């Protein structure tokens, strides 16, 4: 979230799209209600289903799954056409005035720079135009130049008329216009609105572009950086934000630093590649905060390798693993299933072992038969879990998952009993970026161990093996520092202190070298104290400030609210720098005054920025730096020449879609979204599978875990399929009867829930149906739990082009009576 949960109460309009917060985030949803009751805020829901959120919303508009880009570009077109956008903000804080180079273009579904053979774009063709004289950015503050971002955007969205929205999304024109009217009512200084989303946007082959649309819309309306505004992602687990921050995926190191690629052999090469440079003569000089990259990475290497990390050995950069391509979820399992690496042209073997921690690949991966097939190829599998989950028992999955005879599966499976969230100390980082310490409530049962104990013991045992037997590149393991009081089970406060970082030598004050800002051994307090000469160490630069010499700030619980806006600065710790609203410089105008004085983010008092923790240098007067300090150009991007699938979002149908792309039939789907090619990677044709399937969670259950829990099983006793009344009538399906849903991958059977909440979509002149499939069941539920089909038996090996997130939200199925 750019803002926070509590801040939703400051909104005048809340657009809930690509998410169902009342269902999935009922506790945070209280702030929606608060806004409604205290400010008279309007809640608008745009969703393929009439959800629990829609049930308490002020306005609901249906949308065909996977067409959100069309809907949102349609709102942007409406805003430009009617002038209902915040023009002063757009000129001041976005790249709307920036000119784009002549090479950029768009024609019939493709941007310029597309390479058919590799299925990728050459992003250099989308670059800004450099001023011929100053070699800086070329700007047109009147927004009239046909090559300026604003005019290009206007042209790009021109095709997305209300009629086109109705045709593609199946959203009635009058309802679309009503949504557009309510949402754009915040396109001014006085009002402010928020956009909230979750996995209903991320889990599409165009997911990132849907979220881009939200960011662009909010920038057009002047709602980013302001209390009551922002683009707010609701994370799907209690600590998924923490996992992402600390390098949850292969392409990042802690703090969103890049995992080095194999061709970057030295730290200098790596830094040259990773540190962004800015063109000269920008609108104003940019802080370009990523110029601090060397401090972040050197301090991280010092945290990782301790005294072994020296200037002479490039701080141990060589020991960091390098990546030679894509190691995201679906690629790992693809390699595993093939038994060879696709990146190495099939020459290298695929993984032979897998350790899964707090994760159930069989349940959560798309295309379950492929997941099970992949695990069957492994030599060994370690499952660290509280329950005996589907992954631990994949070899005895029902035969309709395509599982081989158990006697033919050679995988040796170990299950290590883990401890649950209440059985260990630690931190959760919530959607609002608040890091909150939690205290252990009870001891883990039996032989169950904490995660850090399991990980530490594996590490220490592996290190012993390297010490005794050597091996390829032993330094990578042997040089890791492990200076915890109890090496076999590190205390998590020690780990948190390490993440925060400390001075390794006295740090002189840059303004007066005779003074010091930190003494050796003191915890660092802010980003500014980090050094790139090995005199500081820091496990994650983004979390600096969480554990200073003042103590564990994640454990703070003060409800003091000095601004009255619900920022609670002394409750836990919000990264970065305890900032509650990101990009908060944009909450003020060119003079540093709040756009809306009743809801100031930060304001310039003549000497300093005051209010929230400013994201700009606190003593830098208005006009000195652009508000968006992480972008080299200093402003926010309506045009983003960095994404894999285009600088502007464009409508592409899902990989499995029941209709043609009405805008450009020749490029129906995202041209850079990859497909897989094993025998298990089958994709359905609309002739055979005419109905849209979509998967989701229910409020009564938590993922695949609570099917073991009697009280919750009572609330939602079993698997069901939500079917619109009209479709049920057509098929002669009665409520409560058994139905079978089949995709190209497999089929599931369950109770029909016939409902008015799902409806047909009129796409062009075709009527399209949708069925809903909740995902909480599986074949492993112990003796007392409730078993049921895995929803992901149906989902395809399709994914987003930027994040490689699977496309769980739109695929094709057929429906029959069972």
């Amino acid at each position, binding site marked *: 979230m750019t803002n926070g949960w509590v801040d939703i109460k400051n909104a005048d309009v809340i657009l809930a799209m690509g998410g169902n917060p*009342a*269902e999935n985030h*009922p*506790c945070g*949803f*209280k702030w929606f*209600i*608060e806004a*409604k*009751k205290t400010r*008279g805020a309007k809640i608008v829901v745009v969703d393929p289903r*009439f959800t*629990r*959120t*829609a*049930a*308490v919303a*002020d306005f*609901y508009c249906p949308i065909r799954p996977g067409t959100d880009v069309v809907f949102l570009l349609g709102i942007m077109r409406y805003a430009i056409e009617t002038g209902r956008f915040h023009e002063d903000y757009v000129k001041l804080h976005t790249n709307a005035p920036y000119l784009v180079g002549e090479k950029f273009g768009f024609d019939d579904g493709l941007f310029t720079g597309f390479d058919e053979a590799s299925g990728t774009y050459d992003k250099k063709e989308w670059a800004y135009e450099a001023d011929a004289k100053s070699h800086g950015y070329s700007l047109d503050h009147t927004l009239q130049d046909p090559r300026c971002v604003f005019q290009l955007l206007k042209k790009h969205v021109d095709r997305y008329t209300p009629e086109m929205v109705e045709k593609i999304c199946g959203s009635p024109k009058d309802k679309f216009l009503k949504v557009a009217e309510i949402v754009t009512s915040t396109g001014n200084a006085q009002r402010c609105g928020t956009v909230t989303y979750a996995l209903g946007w991320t889990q599409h082959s165009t997911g990132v572009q849907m979220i881009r649309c939200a960011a662009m819309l909010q920038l057009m309306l002047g709602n980013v950086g302001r209390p009551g505004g922002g683009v707010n992602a609701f994370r799907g687990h209690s600590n998924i934000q923490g996992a992402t921050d600390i390098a949850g995926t292969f392409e990042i190191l802690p703090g969103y630093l890049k995992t080095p690629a194999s061709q970057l052999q030295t730290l200098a090469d790596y830094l040259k590649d990773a540190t962004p440079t800015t063109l000269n003569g920008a609108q104003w000089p940019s802080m370009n905060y990523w110029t601090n990259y060397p401090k972040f990475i050197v301090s991280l290497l010092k945290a990782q390798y301790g005294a072994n990390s020296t200037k002479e050995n490039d701080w141990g950069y060589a020991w960091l693993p390098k990546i030679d391509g894509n190691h995201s979820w679906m690629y790992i399992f693809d390699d595993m299933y093939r038994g060879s690496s696709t990146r190495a042209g099939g020459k290298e073997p695929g993984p032979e072992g897998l350790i899964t921690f707090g994760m159930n690949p069989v349940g959560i991966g798309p295309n379950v038969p492929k997941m099970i097939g992949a695990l069957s190829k492994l030599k060994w599998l370690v499952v660290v879990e509280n329950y005996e989950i589907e992954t631990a028992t994949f070899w005895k999955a029902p035969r309709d998952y395509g599982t081989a005879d158990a006697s033919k599966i050679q995988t040796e499976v170990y299950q290590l009993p883990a401890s649950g969230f209440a059985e260990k100390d630690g931190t959760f980082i919530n959607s609002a970026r608040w890091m909150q310490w939690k205290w252990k409530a009870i001891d883990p049962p039996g032989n169950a161990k904490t995660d850090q104990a399991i990980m530490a013991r594996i590490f220490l045992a592996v290190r012993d093996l390297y010490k005794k037997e050597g091996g390829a590149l032993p330094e990578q393991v042997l040089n890791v520092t492990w200076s915890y009081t109890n090496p076999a089970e590190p205390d998590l406060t020690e780990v948190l202190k390490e993440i925060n970082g400390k001075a390794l030598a006295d740090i002189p004050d840059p303004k007066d070298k005779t003074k010091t800002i930190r003494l050796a051994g003191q915890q660092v307090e802010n980003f500014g104290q980090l050094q790139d000469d090995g005199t500081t160490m820091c496990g994650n630069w983004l979390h600096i400030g969480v554990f200073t010499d003042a103590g564990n700030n994640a454990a703070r619980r003060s409800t003091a609210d000095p601004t009255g806006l619900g920022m609670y600065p002394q409750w836990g710790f919000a990264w970065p720098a305890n900032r509650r609203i990101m990009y908060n410089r944009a909450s003020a105008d060119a003079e540093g005054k709040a756009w809306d004085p009743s809801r100031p983010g930060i304001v310039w008092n003549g000497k300093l920025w005051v209010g929230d923790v400013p994201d700009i240098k606190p003593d830098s007067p208005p006009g000195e730096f652009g508000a968006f300090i992480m972008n080299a150009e200093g402003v926010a991007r309506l045009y983003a020449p960095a994404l894999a699938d285009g600088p502007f979002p464009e409508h592409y149908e899902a990989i499995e879609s029941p209709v043609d792309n009405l805008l450009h039939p020749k490029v129906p789907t995202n041209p850079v979204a990859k497909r897989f090619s094993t025998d298990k990677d089958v994709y359905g044709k609309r002739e055979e599978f005419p109905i849209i399937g979509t998967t989701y969670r229910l*409020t*009564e259950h938590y993922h695949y875990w609570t099917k073991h829990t*009697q*009280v*919750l*099983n*009572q*609330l*939602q*006793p*079993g*698997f*069901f399929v939500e079917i619109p009344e009209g479709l049920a009538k057509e098929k002669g399906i009665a*409520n*409560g009867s058994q139905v079978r849903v089949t995709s190209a991958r497999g089929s599931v059977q*369950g*109770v*029909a*829930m*016939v*409902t*008015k*909440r799902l409806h047909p979509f009129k796409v062009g002149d075709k009527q399209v149906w949708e069925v809903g499939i909740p995902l909480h069941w599986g074949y492993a539920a112990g003796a007392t739990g409730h078993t049921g089909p895995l929803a992901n038996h149906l989902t395809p090996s399709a994914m987003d082009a930027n994040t490689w997130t699977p496309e769980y939200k739109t695929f094709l199925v057929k429906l029959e009576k069972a």
Partner: protein
Amino acid sequence: MTVQSLEIRRSSASVWGSLSGARTVPTVSKYIDTTTCIGCKACEVACQEWNDLRPVATEQVGTYQTLPTLDAQYWNLIRFNERDFEGGLAWLMRKDQCMHCDEPGCLAACPAPGAIVQYSNGIVDVNPDQCIGCRYCETGCPFDVPRFSRTTGKMAKCTLCVDRVSVGLEPACVKACPTGCLHFGTKEDMLVMAHIRVDQLKKDGFAQAALYDPAGVNGTSVVTILAHGDHPEWYGLPANPHVPILVKVWKKFLRPFGGIAIIGAVFGVVAHYMRHGPKSAFGADQDDSNLPLA
């Protein structure tokens, strides 16, 4: 079990309660705002856990609703209803539970003295020690709330967490509600809050929004905001609830008559004694001296 710290305003099959008049307690109320209820069922679980009720066996039959109706082990149930109306589709979620009527039909119908009581704060409670399991209260309730437990042979229903309320806590469901659609306080305060919300709903386009606090039972200690206040039946609520006429007849006429009959019977016994003396248990010919002393 009755709560000792609360005085009793009314008691079943008794002429008087135990109000001493020494102190007055305001009537309490739970206010349910169905327009901000998301049907998450946290209240259902909180109710079970606080009141030590075991999970019930349920089955997916094509609805989000946990059970078709209330149960002796399930005193709090969100009812889900889908309705088309001129403004579109409404997915209505309404918390079903004992309404704690000001004139409780269950209490009126109950023949067991003290089995159903109404405390001075308005809460209506079943006292299982006194309950004889005759199920007359089912007949008396216009909201179909009391349930007979085959395990205990007693009636069971929501107590409005009287054990919590009597020590200054809110009911468990209110505590658990994540959106704040449940509120608890004095009825006076709840009515103020509720009417502000009704006015807000009317401004937001729900011209028929209303507070359900039915006059037929002289108001309830559980009041509910309905966006479609002209259609309480959409929510599974009776439009004009009242205590069934037969129960009223029983309470107002037949039972005093029964009382007269009892007095008559006592009078008859006394008269019989005066006339015939004590009845011998073992007959006149038996030797009383052989009996052990009682």
